């Protein structure tokens, strides 16, 4: 069974290291904050000047002065802090974040990332902090659905959409697989049950190869 969006976020959360400073991009990655493993302290950064993002507030705790990059209300964990934008991007651009989890339109086999414009003339582009994060965080991982709703592969030989940054993505979490971008190409670390490798390859434009110890990708019902 393919994972649902929350399960993709759950899977990405399992790889977060204790003590890591992590930025969650808008969209799918934002869901990761609901699945931080209880035995680890992870400091979540939001580009708008929040270090120590906590879970979503209850209905009577919403404070519109306290929002995330997606403009949704959040909470602050004990020990959290606020900075202004320039300092927030010192954290991002200056290599102070261990990891950024980002959404994407497309990722290439070289780890090129495209997530800011589809060049649709009726749909204005929006870059936000994506380019800053893509070159500034120590590591970039991407959370995406394996194909578009129309079934077009999002993992491609070359990105068709304009790049956000070249050769930055190291790991890709999808509803079907966990894939590493390596010097030798894309390596599938985990694959969901019920789908065989040739089927996964058929949904992927870039060439894949299975890891020698490829595991089953599964997630609890969340």
């Amino acid at each position, binding site marked *: 069974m393919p994972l649902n969006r929350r399960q993709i976020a759950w899977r990405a959360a399992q790889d977060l290291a204790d003590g890591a400073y992590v930025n969650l991009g808008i969209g799918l990655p934002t869901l990761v904050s609901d699945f931080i493993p209880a035995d680890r302290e992870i400091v979540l950064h*939001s*580009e*708008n*000047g*929040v270090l120590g993002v906590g879970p979503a507030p209850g209905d009577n705790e919403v*404070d*519109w*002065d*306290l*929002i995330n990059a997606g*403009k949704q209300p959040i909470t*602050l964990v004990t020990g959290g802090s*606020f*900075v*202004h*934008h*320039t300092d*927030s*991007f010192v954290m*991002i*651009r200056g290599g102070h974040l261990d990891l950024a989890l980002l959404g994407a339109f497309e990722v290439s086999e070289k780890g090129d990332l495209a997530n800011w414009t589809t060049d649709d003339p*009726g*749909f*204005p*582009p*929006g*870059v*936000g*902090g*994506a*380019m*800053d994060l893509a*070159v*500034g965080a120590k590591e970039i991982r991407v959370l995406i659905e394996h194909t578009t709703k129309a079934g077009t592969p999002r993992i491609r030989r070359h990105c068709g959409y*304009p*790049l*956000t*940054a*070249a050769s930055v993505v190291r790991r890709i979490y999808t509803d079907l697989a966990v894939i590493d971008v390596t010097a030798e190409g894309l390596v599938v670390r985990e694959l969901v049950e019920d789908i065989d490798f040739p089927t996964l390859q058929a949904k992927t434009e870039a060439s894949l190869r299975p890891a020698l110890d490829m595991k089953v990708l599964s997630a609890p019902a969340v």
Partner: protein
Amino acid sequence: MIDKRVRSLAEAVAGIPDGAIVLCGGFGSAGLPDALCEAVIEQGARDLTIVANNAGTGRTGLAALLAAGRVKRIICSFPRSAGSVVFEELYAQGRIELELVPQGTMSERMRCAAAGLGGFYSPVSVGTRLAHGKEHREIDGRLYVLEKPLKGDVALLAAHRGDRWGNLTYRKSARNFNPTMAMAASLSIAQVRQVVELGEVDPEMVVTPGIFVDRVVEVAI
């Protein structure tokens, strides 16, 4: 005696010239100087260039200023967001120019202007369309693009508390671009939720010192 307090929004935005570059604080609706944006409609300045992270939501505040046809150009990192209906209409009709700038680049360009610097070399956007036409330079083996300072004629700011010297404090993530913009404009105007007596704000808590602020107006919200 220094007294930067003004009694009305009209007084706060008086004198903004046509064609001004206006830095507008806020991220989404947090820390957005809605009342000042709407006061600029009354004040009458036109052909403005707005520098703001987003292009307004709904039909109030910054979106109202756009809807009134006073903005010819917007410099922005993320114009499209939930509720950015006015911008999207103007953009589709070709009635507003958009300069898209990565968020950290936008912020640092303003900081450069504030600090009297001629620009900076940034690795952000290298190899992308947003680097086209920019000077590239390799420094210690890494490729950078030259980004120039971005100075405002006016900054419209939203803060939490302010005093008659113009010292400002902020609340939570409503701080965002406001402190940088306060430093980067010739005329910085702050709407604050509460004007307090000089000395009431702990000096350790002042985020924007009054040297960067010209006018303070209380807008209780």
